[in-house]
């Protein structure tokens, strides 16, 4: 029976009803009037029970959803508008399994409710972990500590080299060691707000809760965090946060945390509980009876293809930023694992959410292979500007004028001008978009025209070169190494670059995808950052998933599915998957065309960056989708991969990755096209305020968009998971 | 290496201090020599200890070198000079460090000769027709009561005369000077490496330790060569 409740900090009535999967669910009615709320609530329940009775196909689910709209429409005039514009009900494919109860209690309650695996039985289970970054290494180690047998795979030559290692800034945790008013709730609130209200409240709250344990864990592993003279941990404020909650180890926090997780993993490898497979790349996920039960991999040294079975498969394979060719990701980062999982039936959520970092070193030429990030902290003391007139910029680009000779009156400190209260410290997405804007106006300053100044001369005049050197010396050195220019004398040049991808495999509260037995953790899933990630939160999420969430939640699935024999790797499912993998490799090698994998990757990146990068519009996205089809066709007709499959063949590896990126890029564009609003890292030109700021549409787009693959050649299907904000009130971000 | 190195280093200092008595005249040197000989069994303990240490030092050096060769079975193939003008092995390696095994081997050869010359008194090894076995302390050199005149075939030997006669031969002195030079080069790295191995040398003390090792090795060198050179140039001669 449906009932209404009210919460202290929300103006809306909440409806409690039984969801299609039988769980008691609470959902906001978005109504302040109790009677209207009751009407809406009854419809919720009816829809749920209808949905439950039907064995839902996706079309039927759609019908249920549209039925609700139709039924509600004629009956309640006043409610009508709200109902029509409410996001459609969550697809039955996407049961988020968010526990009931107050947000503070959800995780604890859930941990208690989760089924446990008897300690003596844990050793009967096999788990595959793909990836050895923060999430993968910490999960593999923690699972092995619990007693599970783990097989861990990575494409690098050592698990210590995963790209988590390159994170510089730090890791957030709600420790409140600085006594400045931080709390779990505040970190939760900041993360939801920072994610532009496109993340799941319950997940984010859990993330904030376990953040505290992460720091304890890492300190116990011997991670040399920065300390104060008293011996206690030091903190800094990061990414515009109002409190100092970021823990750090010089500019190498990611490295130190990863080495901590790697040491825990190494210990388990030494003990024989984890078997590590390095230089081994996942090429397919194997499903048996609709459940993920194994993978097919290629040994990158010998070219050997092998099948591995397990009771569950965990993907910790990172993000897909390299779809843009140029990004701050490592050369090897790829989408293959999650894309293959998607093609096997796992829903891919929010692929259009990508984070563009504003302070990277600009591209220097066509040879550029990757981009290098400069810490965001530089914006604390550097001032961003470009010349006011394009003609001056042109002179600078041609080398006829030095930036120091541009008079003050001719400089446009555009961030300070447009956002007087935040100035140069506006969030990443805002800073990035503005850089693009001024460069599009022809005011960019490096030879490519894609760069703006980050000028320290005022800071040097104010506090002296020595003070600047003390704060940023290593960054200035790195800048000089790469560009050959001395940033103490000339202003730095920076330009935005792809940095992180918030989208990923759709997962429920247990971090399991819609394919039973297939888990995704870290950057590979979509769950915690919404449409935009806060600085110093990526490390937090990776480790939270690996150390403190997955080891509990995987037990539920394993306990339910039992420890019976792992599926036989000689079974038809495995043999078919291997055959498909072999065919694909043979095909790549047999095309013998003219173009190199890199040239396709570069072209793909250009299409994506221009149409699905910092700002997107309908026509651009549509043209990108058709261009990508053409490019894919050319790829499969004109690719040139020399060498053999039974050897170390880096061209072959790259070709395989690029082929997946080509397919995946289209999915990103589709998702960006579907999301007719601007939120976080996703900016649609059609949906902006007259001043050009992002305009969110909470009425219609407060949902997770998860795509289901429907076979090659068919359009994928969008499923929606409605996002309910019970704790945090949605507001428009403003940095004016 | 370091531990045996410490022992050998101790011997080298003691040996020098003893030998510098040559400047104090024949009596002092011979008295010192006799005292050493009078130690009897203790002298043999010292000799065996020293021999053992030399043996261990060489044995570990050979073992180390072999193991180190094993650690790079396939050597670098390129023979280019890097930009900074060093061979690849010597990115920071000084001459001394690179040549430890060679300087060591030459020193061993010299030590044998030196022993044959003065301890075993092999006749005519120095090329002069004079047998050291016949050098005994003469009555006029006796200075103290318990120091008696030598007899044929018995101690005390006239070490002073032996030393002076021996180093009168230019090539003996030449070989000696070269060997001592090598020894001191060996030591200049050995000392600093030893202190590094033991952790006494670190970034704070590095400058001092390295300088100290070179100064010390140079002092040893000067001390040792002062004896034969003084003899050759007749600052020290037979009375």
């Amino acid at each position: 029976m449906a009932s209404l409740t009210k919460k202290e900090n929300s103006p809306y009535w909440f409806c409690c009803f039984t969801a299609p999967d039988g769980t008691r669910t609470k959902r906001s009615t978005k109504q302040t009037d109790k009677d209207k709320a009751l009407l809406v609530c009854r419809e919720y329940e009816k829809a749920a029970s209808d949905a439950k009775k039907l064995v839902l196909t996706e079309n039927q689910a759609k019908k249920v959803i549209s039925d609700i709209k139709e039924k509600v429409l004629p009956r309640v005039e006043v409610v009508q508008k709200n109902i029509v514009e409410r996001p459609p009900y969550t697809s039955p494919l996407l049961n988020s399994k968010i526990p009931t109860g107050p947000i503070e209690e959800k995780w604890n309650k859930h941990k208690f409710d989760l089924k446990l695996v008897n300690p003596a039985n844990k050793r009967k289970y096999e788990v595959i972990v793909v990836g050895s970054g923060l999430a993968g290494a910490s999960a593999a180690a923690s699972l092995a500590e619990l007693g599970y047998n783990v097989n861990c795979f990575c494409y690098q030559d050592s698990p210590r080299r995963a790209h988590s290692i390159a994170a510089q800034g730090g890791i957030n945790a709600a420790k409140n060691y600085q006594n400045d008013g931080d709390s779990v709730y505040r970190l939760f609130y900041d993360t939801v707000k920072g994610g532009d209200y496109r993340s799941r409240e319950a997940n984010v709250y859990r993330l904030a809760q376990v953040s505290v344990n992460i720091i304890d864990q890492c300190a116990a592993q011997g991670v040399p965090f920065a300390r104060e003279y008293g011996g206690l941990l030091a903190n800094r404020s990061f990414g515009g946060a109002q409190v100092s909650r970021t823990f750090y180890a010089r500019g190498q926090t990611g490295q130190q945390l990863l080495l901590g997780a790697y040491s825990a993993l190494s210990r388990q490898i030494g003990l024989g509980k984890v078997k590590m497979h390095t230089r081994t790349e996942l090429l397919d996920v194997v499903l048996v009876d609709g459940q993920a039960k194994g993978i097919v991999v290629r040994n990158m040294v010998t070219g050997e293809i092998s099948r591995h079975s397990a009771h569950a498969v965990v993907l910790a394979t990172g993000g897909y930023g390299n779809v843009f060719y140029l990004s701050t990701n490592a050369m090897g980062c790829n989408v293959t694992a999650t894309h293959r999982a998607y093609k096997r039936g796992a829903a891919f959520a929010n692929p259009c959410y990508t984070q563009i970092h504003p302070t990277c070193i600009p591209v220097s030429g066509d040879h550029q292979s990757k981009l290098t990030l400069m810490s965001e902290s530089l914006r604390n003391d550097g001032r961003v500007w470009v010349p006011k007139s394009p003609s001056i910029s042109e002179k600078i680009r041609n080398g006829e004028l030095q930036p120091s000779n541009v008079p003050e009156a001719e400089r446009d400190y555009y961030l300070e001008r447009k956002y007087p209260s935040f100035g140069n410290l506006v969030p990443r997405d805002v800073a990035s978009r503005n850089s693009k804007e001024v460069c599009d106006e022809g005011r960019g300053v490096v030879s490519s025209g894609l760069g703006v100044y980050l000028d320290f001369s005022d800071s040097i005049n104010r506090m002296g070169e020595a003070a600047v050197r003390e704060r940023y010396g290593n960054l200035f050195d790195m800048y000089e190494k790469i560009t050959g220019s001395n940033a103490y004398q000339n202003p730095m040049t920076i330009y935005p670059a792809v940095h992180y991808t918030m989208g990923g495999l759709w997962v429920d509260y247990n971090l399991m995808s819609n394919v039973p037995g297939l888990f995704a953790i870290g950057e590979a899933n979509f769950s915690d950052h919404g449409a935009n990630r806060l600085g110093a939160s990526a490390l937090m999420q990776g480790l939270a998933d690996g150390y403190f969430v997955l080891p509990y939640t995987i037990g539920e699935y394993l306990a339910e599915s039992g420890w019976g024999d792992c599926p036989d790797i000689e079974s038809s499912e495995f043999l078919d998957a291997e055959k498909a993998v072999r065919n694909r490799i043979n095909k790549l090698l047999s095309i013998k065309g003219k173009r190199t994998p890199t040239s396709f990757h570069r072209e793909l990146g250009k299409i994506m960056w221009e149409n699905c990068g910092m700002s997107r519009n309908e026509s651009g996205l549509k043209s990108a989708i058709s261009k990508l089809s053409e490019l894919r066709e050319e790829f499969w007709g004109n690719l040139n991969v020399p060498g053999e499959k039974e050897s170390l063949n880096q061209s072959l590896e790259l070709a395989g990755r690029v082929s997946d990126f080509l397919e995946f890029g289209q999915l990103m564009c589709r998702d960006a096209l579907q999301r007719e609003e601007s939120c976080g890292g996703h900016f649609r030109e059609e949906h902006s305020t007259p001043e050009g700021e992002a305009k969110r549409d909470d009425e219609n787009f407060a949902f997770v968009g998860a795509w289901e693959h429907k076979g090659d050649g068919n359009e994928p299907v969008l499923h929606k998971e409605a996002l309910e904000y019970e704790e945090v009130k949605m507001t428009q971000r403003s940095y004016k | 290496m370091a531990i045996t190195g410490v022992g050998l280093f101790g011997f080298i200092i003691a040996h020098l201090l003893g030998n510098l008595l040559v400047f104090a005249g024949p009596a002092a040197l011979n008295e010192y020599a006799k005292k050493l000989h009078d130690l009897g069994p203790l002298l043999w303990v010292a000799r065996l200890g020293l021999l053992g240490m030399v043996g261990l030092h060489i044995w570990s050096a050979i073992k180390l070198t072999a193991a180190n060769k094993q650690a790079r079975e396939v050597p670098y193939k390129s023979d280019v000079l890097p930009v900074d003008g060093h061979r690849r092995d010597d990115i920071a390696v000084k001459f001394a460090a690179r040549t430890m095994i060679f300087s060591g081997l030459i020193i061993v050869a010299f030590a044998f000769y030196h022993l044959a010359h003065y301890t075993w008194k092999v006749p005519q090894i120095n090329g002069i027709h004079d047998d050291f076995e016949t050098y005994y302390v003469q009555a006029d050199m006796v200075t103290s009561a318990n120091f008696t005149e030598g007899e044929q075939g018995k101690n005390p030997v006239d070490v002073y005369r032996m030393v002076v006669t021996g180093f009168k031969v230019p090539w003996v002195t030449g070989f000696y000077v070269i060997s001592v030079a090598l020894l001191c080069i060996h030591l200049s790295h050995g000392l600093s490496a030893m202190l590094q191995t033991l952790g006494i040398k670190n970034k704070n003390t590095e400058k001092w330790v390295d300088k100290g090792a070179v100064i010390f090795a140079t002092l040893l060198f000067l001390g040792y060569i002062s004896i034969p050179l003084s003899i050759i140039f007749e600052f020290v001669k037979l009375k």
Partner: protein
Amino acid sequence: MGKLLNLKLRVWRQDNAEDSGRFEEYDAKGVDTDMSFLEMLDVVNEDLLEDGKEPIAFDSDCREGICGTCSMVINGTPHGGQKGTTACQLHMRQFSDGMTITIEPWRASAFPVQRDLVVNRSAFDRIQQSGGFISVRSGSVPDANATPVAKEDADLAMDAAQCIGCGACVAACKNASAMLFVAAKLSHLSLVPQGQPERERRALAMVQKMDEEGFGSCTVTGSCEAVCPKEISLDFIARMNREYGMALIRKGTV
């Protein structure tokens, strides 16, 4: 855009671990001085591909000098000789027009060549697995501030912990010794209070494993420190020697 250079490359080519290998010469024309060294190789590889030849296999991943994947001896010096710089961060403005550049893989018995410039450094992983950790289970730990760490110790531990495990120390050492790598890890863990309980066990296990893996020994030549892209100090080797010596005595092995 920077200046353009024309260079001659002599690159070690080896089809697999069994192959004896050889140098091959390539022309690198119109190399932009703004390129990184690896980007220069990328361009050469693209040209090779277009000629239907197999590109030069070399390791690289993050290309920002932190993952430790890139590994090549450039003109006789691991990582190319710019102080504190990995090969991926070395830029072509360090070279001059007309130069011949010789590129070889790391050479050490413990790092067998797998192909061209790619070597197998799993020996480092095995040393780490023998004891390079603090044994704590996820979750069973005290509050992070319950154990204060003197700032000086934390800073020194961080100096050691910066090691990226690239293996340049081994490549540069005339004895192919891994002492700097092992010393960095041991020093890091023995400098923090959390690492004390296992201190001796760790020192014995890691040093023993290092010897088993076939690395040479330290003769204090200092070339490891000179090429280390993270400029890790030789002093840590002394610390390791003390650590190992004390462990031998305390554990009664000597």
